């Protein structure tokens, strides 16, 4: 997925001189996950450069650049480190169009590796998406595969509003289904691992059904899409797996259609439970599908604790736990 993300930036920088890329270690080195490798060499160091270690400065200057007319696409080294920029993101980027009534706008993209599964402990594993979905004015994207990642990132860069682009880092090197005990598989063997070279977009706000099913609706995004698919195979439950891709705006229609059909729903994410994005999904499902629901909507998520280092796989909601939730939803 690294190549897909890189290609999205490459294509965008090639097409539009106003696209600039910066962040910690993203210049000469090409980023700690190598997502920007080669961009400085290709586009010059005033369009792709290293930033001081100041997330608020990175986002703050990006906002100023956007006000000027550029389209900055910046990297926060880990989503866990976006907090120093949270003020600039939520009180500035998200509100500039509104408060100025469109006199100024803020077309920035903030990329950040998210999620666990790499023994990164509590400061390299977080999934802060709900802290963005509560903020009107932001858009929030979490891709689950290289094909989407590229198309969505190009859309994000072309979008006239600020987009938080969360890249599940455990998916960088392959479609991880939670079976950490098994050998890693590469994207090359996955149908969505193949990424066309040129420009293409995927619309923001449209979910995708990854597995058709009739027994149960699973709402997931990012890494959890693969875990949900594995759980469906392993439990043999005919689950319909929705990959949200875009959390804000949300494709409510696809969700409602599916739950109306299945009558049962499981919501899955890696972030902590309380006030996670799953809560919003459950609330929406019960608001819109109440009379079709045959059982309570079940949430499977990370525990309400920091992400522990040693007990990583007891924390991660893997296919066994997700599978149990399927059974719970079916048997309720």
């Amino acid at each position, binding site marked *: 997925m690294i190549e897909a993300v890189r290609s999205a930036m490459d294509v965008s920088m090639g097409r539009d001189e*106003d696209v*600039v890329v910066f962040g910690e270690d993203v210049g000469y080195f090409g980023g700690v996950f190598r997502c920007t490798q080669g961009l400085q060499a290709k586009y010059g160091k*005033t*369009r792709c450069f290293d*930033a*001081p270690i*100041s997330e*608020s*400065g990175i986002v*703050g*200057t*990006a*906002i*100023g*650049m*956007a*006000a*000027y*007319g*550029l389209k900055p696409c910046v990297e926060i080294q880990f989503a866990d480190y976006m907090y*120093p920029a949270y*003020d*600039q993101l939520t*009180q*500035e980027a998200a*509100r*500039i*169009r*509104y*408060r*100025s*009534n*469109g*006199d*100024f*706008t803020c077309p920035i993209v903030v990329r950040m590796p998210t999620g666990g599964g790499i023994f990164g402990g509590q400061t390299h594993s977080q999934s802060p998406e709900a802290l963005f979905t509560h903020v*009107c*004015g932001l*858009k929030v994207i979490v891709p689950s595969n290289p094909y989407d990642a590229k198309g969505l990132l190009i859309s994000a860069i072309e979008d*006239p*509003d600020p987009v938080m682009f969360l890249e599940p880092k455990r998916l960088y090197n392959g479609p991880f289904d939670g079976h950490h005990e098994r050998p890693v598989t590469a994207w090359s063997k996955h149908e969505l691992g193949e990424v066309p070279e040129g420009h293409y977009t995927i619309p923001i*706000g449209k979910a995708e059904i990854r597995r058709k099913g009739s027994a149960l609706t699973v709402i997931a995004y990012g890494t959890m899409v693969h875990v949900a698919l594995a759980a469906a195979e392993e439990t043999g439950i005919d689950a319909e797996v929705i990959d949200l891709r875009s959390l*804000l*705006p*949300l494709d*409510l229609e696809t969700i409602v259609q599916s739950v109306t059909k299945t009558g049962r729903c499981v919501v899955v994410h890696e972030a902590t439970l309380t006030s996670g994005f799953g809560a919003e999904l459950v609330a929406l499902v019960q608001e819109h599908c109440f009379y079709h629901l045959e059982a309570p909507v079940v949430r499977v998520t990370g525990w309400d604790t920091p992400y522990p280092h040693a007990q990583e796989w007891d924390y991660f909601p893997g296919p066994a736990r997700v599978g149990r939730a399927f059974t719970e939803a079916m048997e309720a």
Partner: protein
Amino acid sequence: MDEFSRLTLHVPEPAVRPGDQPDFSNVRIPKAGSVPRPEVDVDPETIRDLAFSIIRVLNREGEAVGPWAGLLSDEELLAGLRHMMLLRAFDARMLMAQRQGKTSFYMQHLGEEAVSCAFRKALRKGDMNFPTYRQAGLLIADDYPMVEMMNQIFSNESDPCHGRQLPVMYTSKEHGFFTISGNLATQFVQAVGWAMASAIKNDTRVAAGWIGDGSTAESDFHSALVFASTYKAPVILNIVNNQWAISTFQGIARGGSGTFAARGLGFGIPALRVDGNDYLAVYAVARWAADRARRNLGPTLIEYVTYRVGAHSTSDDPSAYRPKTESEAWPLGDPVLRLKKHLIVRGVWSEERHAQAEAEIMDEVIQAQKKAEAHGTLHAGGRPSVRDIFEGVYAEMPPHIRRQRQKAGY
């Protein structure tokens, strides 16, 4: 056994409090004309002293003296006086309007008019300011229509912000005035980003960031200096030191450093202090910094030494925390009176013309206010629509906001 005595916490306190006699004898005021004017490409390390002095042009006699004088024509100075008087009259009327319930809130500039009015004249069309709530002079001096400002203040049907923003939180891209934020300091680093963008695009336009003395304690002040210093951004970083941050005297934000300008020293950024109540000095220093920026020499930090004569805002009453007469003791005087005196000394102005101008200006403001009020005030007459709540959160309204708008009945 312990050779050290007990520690104690040092908490800075202002010299005087309500009931005390105002006293600024500890404020060192250099003579007008005494501070040298370096070349714009000077090595910042050689002008560290400028961060601890005060550049002044107008002396007590109302003459413009020294190396920073002589940049503005009589016409320009007369226009400057007019802008400051306009801003003062505007403030007076809007304060009254707030008391009359025509709006919820207002923030005035009393005593600080020279800073933003003179600064604007050092910039060009196309340059961009990232102001705080106390630089309306940037708009006034750029001939932004007062009626528009009032429409915004009244949150009426013609408010350019459609009622969404607190009064005085103007925006005008056309006039180089970035949309004001209620969150302090955020805009300081954005100014640096705008300037970086201008440099990335090989443009010739420069940016200016604005911040108050108290707000320099915020994180974004640091980010701004770091990025400006690293990328040599063409930006002017303005600190308006009006001595107070609501009830908090400047010693709390400044701490052990002699001045706010000194903050620039740790970044290799030229740092100048200027008499903020001296229109000519403000212009001269701003112009020096703008020239530096435009010659690709990088950022300049400027501290404007001034005094907030009025309350922080209409929600504040300063008599609770400082002597009522403190402003009268302020040693740098009143910017309007000082420029007026200078123009009289130069023979191009008189007490009579001033009185007449004052009346005319007040009339102009009143006329504008009438026009604005015809479009409504906060609680009466034309108002922005409820629909406006839902518009503009995004370029295109997403389905969930549309549903909510419909639920609201619009």
